[in-house]
């Protein structure tokens, strides 16, 4: 990316303003926060204007004669009636239409796209898969892990006796997985910091040179 020094100075100043929050909440941070909120909202305005109002409504209507597109446009505008108490119920029609569509897609997605294939993929030979140190078979770990996790999240029975012991195994599995998640997340958060530090010190201020 070939940014000019001016561009980098703008960006660098904003980065430092945001980071100043680490010391405490201060006017620089608040200014940056408001600039950010304003630009973000403006970004949405420009984006929706071009990609929806122009490209999905205006162009199809005027150039392809698809005048029926006036209906989704009206339904979209009806969403704004929620700002007026007396008319707000009209916005429910558009909202319900979108929610119904989403719910339909969601339902198919969950059953057909997740539950069936995920269940199918668990029906495997327990001795298959990689063995840890040659003693713990991976396939068995998957089967036991999936079943005990499902048992742990089963709420219709007290966790006592055999059922309780299974749930205990489940919680051990869950903690192993969350531990792994923890380790991964640390890397994610650090990546972003490293990116910003590199920008400020190397690209902008040129404190030292890489390579």
């Amino acid at each position: 990316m070939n940014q000019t020094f001016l561009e980098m100075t703008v960006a660098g100043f904003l980065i430092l303003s945001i980071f100043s929050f680490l010391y405490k909440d201060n006017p620089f941070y608040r200014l940056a926060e408001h600039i950010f909120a304003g630009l973000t909202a403006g970004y949405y305005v420009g984006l929706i204007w071009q990609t929806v109002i122009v490209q999905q409504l205006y162009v199809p209507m005027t150039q392809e004669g698809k005048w029926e597109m006036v209906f989704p446009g009206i339904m979209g505008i009806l969403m704004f009636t929620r700002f007026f108490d007396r008319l707000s119920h009209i916005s429910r029609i558009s909202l319900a239409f979108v929610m119904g569509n989403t719910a339909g897609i969601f339902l198919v997605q969950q059953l057909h796209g997740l539950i069936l294939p995920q269940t199918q993929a668990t029906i495997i030979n327990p001795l298959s898969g990689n063995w840890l140190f040659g003693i713990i078979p991976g396939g068995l770990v998957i089967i036991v892990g999936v079943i005990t996790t499902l048992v742990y999240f089963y709420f219709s029975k007290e966790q006592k006796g055999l059922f309780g012991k299974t749930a205990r195994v489940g919680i051990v599995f869950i903690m192993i997985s969350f531990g792994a998640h923890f380790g991964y997340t640390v890397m994610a958060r650090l990546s972003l910091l490293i990116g910003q530090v590199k920008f400020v010190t190397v690209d902008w201020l040129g404190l030292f040179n890489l390579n």
Partner: protein
Amino acid sequence: MVLLATIIPFIAGFPQPIHISKESRDLYDWVENIPDGSTILLTFDYYPSTIAEVEPMSRAAIKQCWRKNLKLITLSTVPLGGPNIAERVLNDMATGWAVEEFGEEKKYGIDFINLGYKPDYKAVILGMGDSFRRIYPTDFAGVSLDSFPIMRDIDRYEDVEFLFIISDNGIVDEWITIANRQFGIPIGSGVTAVMAPKFYSYLQSRQMVGLLGGMKGASEYENLVGAEGMATLFMGPQSTVHLIIILFILVGNAAYFIGGRKP
């Protein structure tokens, strides 16, 4: 202290053996086996907050694809930034890296195209299964899709060979359950480390062919593609800061147990 640990490795450099995981290699191999010259979909499903982590993946992916002369149809399902990030990365690669590598620029509309963003990702992903053109009548700049050679004969998932998702959020779930399950297009993805643990489940169920997890995955992929980039460079600081955090946890807990477990 964290800041120092970040900066010092930049200056000092660090020994970097890279262990390449199976999920990264699988993704690389799959893309290698796509017939040269085919068309694939590449998504920029991420917000500006995570570019440090996932943009290296996008760049490495573009390198691998263009070396195989694959044509790229890119799009974004996130509203804040996705399409503009795509614009910047694609233009930069087409006029910069491509010239160094091939001696000529990659051309918009022939080698790649940016469809941009359309709202409601569930509707977009499902709608594209029936027709790309109905959801995206134009590219990001508002030019009709029919005027681009790259879009000739392409209107459904069946017409493209592969779906390469680079994402920092849960939209991967939608791509998998709709585009892959209902329309049968193979999917590979590069995601942030926060999201990655969940997706291992899709690898074994063969709903996904390969996975790049966070900066580590990105550096492995850069290594495979043979183009060391930002991710490889950043793994040095990762090492030192990780060590500091582990040390903090150990010291903190030692104090906790010695101090009679009172917080």
